[in-house]
């Protein structure tokens, strides 16, 4: 199992109900996967558990490798404004990954705005710049929490397909409220449900669309229905 969460129970201090009660789920292969669920169900908290930002839970989180690097990015992140976007990206790109950075800068449409400070960018541009700096890091799992929320649909689709093409051996956990996107692009959709429901997490297979493998409209509708029913 690439990522295995077993029997996780967690309650925030000073709250009446636990957020997770005996939550179990696993990801058994690399690829683009999703964590889907209604607002407040604990998607971000689960991401924080996976990255070790929350430690006082019971249960186990195990990864295939002992020192697996799990990164988490979300759409509100900012780059410091004391320097231009291209300077920041150059500074945080590990040596040997410069070419990859340049590929993403071009493909994500960031080249023209790279000399601006971060605060001068639109929300969609901010999302793309932020994602680039994560993609050039060393990671085994990247949790993308609504990190393309402000990017237009066509570009978002292109970016997701590009990521899938470039990182076939890495694991992505895509957190989004867009059911059609999740159903189309993700291999496994882990649906987080309210703490009152058992099991709290259900796994559904997505269409896992790639450049080479387009999807059929009917299958997409069927998967979307399956996802919505599971929630």
């Amino acid at each position, binding site marked *: 199992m690439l990522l295995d969460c077993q029997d996780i129970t967690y309650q925030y201090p000073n709250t009446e109900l636990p957020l997770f009660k005996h939550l179990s789920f696993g990801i058994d292969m690399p690829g683009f996967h999703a964590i889907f669920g209604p607002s407040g169900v604990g998607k971000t908290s689960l991401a924080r558990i996976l*990255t070790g930002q929350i430690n006082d839970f019971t249960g186990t989180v195990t990864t295939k490798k002992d020192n697996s690097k799990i*990164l*988490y*990015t*979300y759409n*509100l*992140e*900012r*780059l*410091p*404004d*004391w*320097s*231009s976007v291209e300077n920041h990206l150059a500074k*945080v790109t590990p040596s040997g990954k410069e070419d990859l950075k340049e590929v993403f800068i071009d493909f994500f449409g960031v080249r023209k705005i790279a000399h601006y*400070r971060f*605060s001068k960018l639109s929300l969609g541009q901010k999302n793309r710049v*932020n994602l680039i*700096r*994560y993609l050039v*890091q060393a990671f085994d799992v990247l949790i993308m929490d609504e990190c393309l929320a402000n990017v237009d649909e066509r570009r978002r689709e292109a970016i997701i397909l590009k990521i899938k093409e470039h990182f076939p051996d890495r694991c992505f956990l895509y957190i989004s409220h867009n059911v059609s996107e999740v159903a189309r692009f993700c291999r496994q959709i882990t649906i987080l449900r309210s703490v009152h429901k058992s099991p709290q997490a259900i796994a559904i297979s997505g269409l896992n669309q790639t450049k080479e493998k387009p999807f059929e409209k009917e299958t997409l509708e069927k998967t979307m229905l399956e996802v919505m029913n599971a929630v």
Partner: protein
Amino acid sequence: MLYRRLYQFFIIYLLGLAILFTIKYTLRLSEYVIPAPATVLLTVAEVYARYSKDVFDTFSVAIIGQLISIGLAIFISIFGRHASWVGSFVKVAAYNVQAYPIVALAPIIFILLGDGFLSRLLIAAMICYFPLLLSMLGIMSEPITEVEHFYAATGRLRWQLEVKIRAFENLHKLATVIAGSATLAMAGTIVAEFIAANAGIGYSIRIALYQSDLSKILIALFFIGITLSCYQGFLEWLGQQAGKLWAGNA
């Protein structure tokens, strides 16, 4: 910004004078209690050169005291910014010590160090230091999660970068706090001079008080106010320029 500071000062000062003279003429108070405007003008001609020198003397001590306080507050707030044992100790110590009025300690300082430059400097720095420290501790111990997250997650968040991020994000607050602390430094120096020193405008005010000469005190207040307004205006302008330069908006 500087002009705003100056005209605000002039409005307040002239308003104060107007109230004073209204009281004088309404209650028909004598020259000894509140001098007439003509007497004040005559005194200006008599003391302006000496008082300008005195205010400059006080102002120099206040600036040095403020710089020492800023340096010390930055240093301590960097150490005290985390929720570690050392951090908590620094915060608690800062809160407790600042609750004690520094002016009450002034006599001890004068007894130990005499009535010269060092005593004035120390009192100015101490009065200015604690409010500065509390503000800086507040700024430095507040994480800027949406900026720091990436650096923390990728193992790049060293203390220098953390301090840089927090200072940059709170530059406006820092500039305001530093400009505000100028008043405290000046007040500290004047209080020190008033209590026991042998130089500065506080010392001149003490002598004027012994002579019951309100004209001299009013003139001293004018010089103090105008100097402080210019300095605060300059500090605010400096903060604004630093922000623009750092954020690339110059």
